[in-house]
């Protein structure tokens, strides 16, 4: 059985080519990869930091839901999946399709 899609059991990990770097100019984190990068929102940074290969997608969503009680868990799960799909589409994630 493969863990293709419906995230629950997938354990996403940032690709080794990715570097997270704090940006003094904006106070945000940049996710750098060959020739370009993404400026991350606060939530995106929190998600990216949990992409270690140890957390499942569900685990990431639950963890964020505990921190951000003002946002509904459904919304958080959707944000997590959207962001992970963005990263995967750019070839920046392993263990998630």
């Amino acid at each position, binding site marked *: 059985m493969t863990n293709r899609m419906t995230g629950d059991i997938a354990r996403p990990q940032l690709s080794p*080519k990715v570097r997270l*770097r704090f*940006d003094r100019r904006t106070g945000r984190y940049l996710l750098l*990869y*060959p*020739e370009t990068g993404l400026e991350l929102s606060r939530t995106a940074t929190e998600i990216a930091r949990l992409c270690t290969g140890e957390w499942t997608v569900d685990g990431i969503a639950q963890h964020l839901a505990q921190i951000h009680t003002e946002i509904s868990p459904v919304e958080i799960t959707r944000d997590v999946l959207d962001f992970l799909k963005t990263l995967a*589409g*750019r*070839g920046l994630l392993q263990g998630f399709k």
Partner: protein
Amino acid sequence: MNNEYRPYTLIAELTYRCPLRCPYCSNPLGYAGHGNEIDTDTWLRVFQEAEALCVVQLNLTGGEPLLRDDLEQLIERASRLELYTNLITSGIPLTFERLSRFAALGLNCVQVSVQSSRSTESDRIAGAPSFHRKLEVMQWVASLELPLTLNVVLHRDNIGEIAELIALAERVSADRLELANAQYLGWALKNRVALLPTREQIETARTIAADARERLRGTMEVIFVTPDYYSVHPKSCMDGWGRRFIVVNPEGLALPCHLAHTLPGLRFDNVTKRHLADIWHHSDGFNQFRGDGWLPDACRSCDRHTKDFGGCRCQAFHVTGNAGATDPACSLSPDHGFIESARSQASQSAGVPILFEYRNGRGFAQ
């Protein structure tokens, strides 16, 4: 803090020397020799000054950057400054040991170019035997688990190979494939008649590239750059003048693009004489085409100028004689006729072999 004029990338042109002689080389036509290159300490200081300006990406390029024997020192400093460092190279001259050293010192990624997917043709365009060595270098890159960008400059003689080029990129496990049509400036403008593809060639190639992009999404990024001779709107050259990029050329001139110093009447400063932040914020050259005060009428009345910033200044100058004109690639430019006639010349001379004028001058030190 205002992020409108914020450099993300330093393009360090370490040398104009190169073992290859590609007829579309983006270096200036009358490039300088070895004697005028800035030294190691100056480059180390420039990296530091760039990082202080919040630059986060560093491209080590040339010419052929491998010809600098201080490349190890430069990579080490860049890595210590947490710059995401990209080596842009022909792969010649290189050994596996030296590349391993670069990786250990913190090099982040490598870009290798081939001139064609076929060895004899690649060697013919490069003006030197090089294809087999490039393949070997790309295998080394993969074995060191460095991300690899395969770059191919497209023109009339190799644009028909697009499917083979994609297959080659897959074979060498490229992370990115850049299929970039030549920009018709410098050597490429001199050789434009021999290089510019026809519209049919462009459309066929674009379709094949788009299919590959979908098929390979998540594994390999496929980028197809249309020549602006065939676009309706100009490119936002360098993401706008003095907005995102700093080029420092082998002699130490700090520039908004690699050919900016070929524009007459502009003054650019040298990093040996002025601090990079001072040049970025206050120099005449960097401020010349910032904002919209300089925009020609065709751009000012068009809301696309916030997207394309009036296009390429060098192209405007080389075609119209005025660096402040609307990029003639734009269909709204009063000088667009030049581009149209270049296109019809391309379609008339389709299939006719035309000789290149090879890049010459002081190349590889034998």
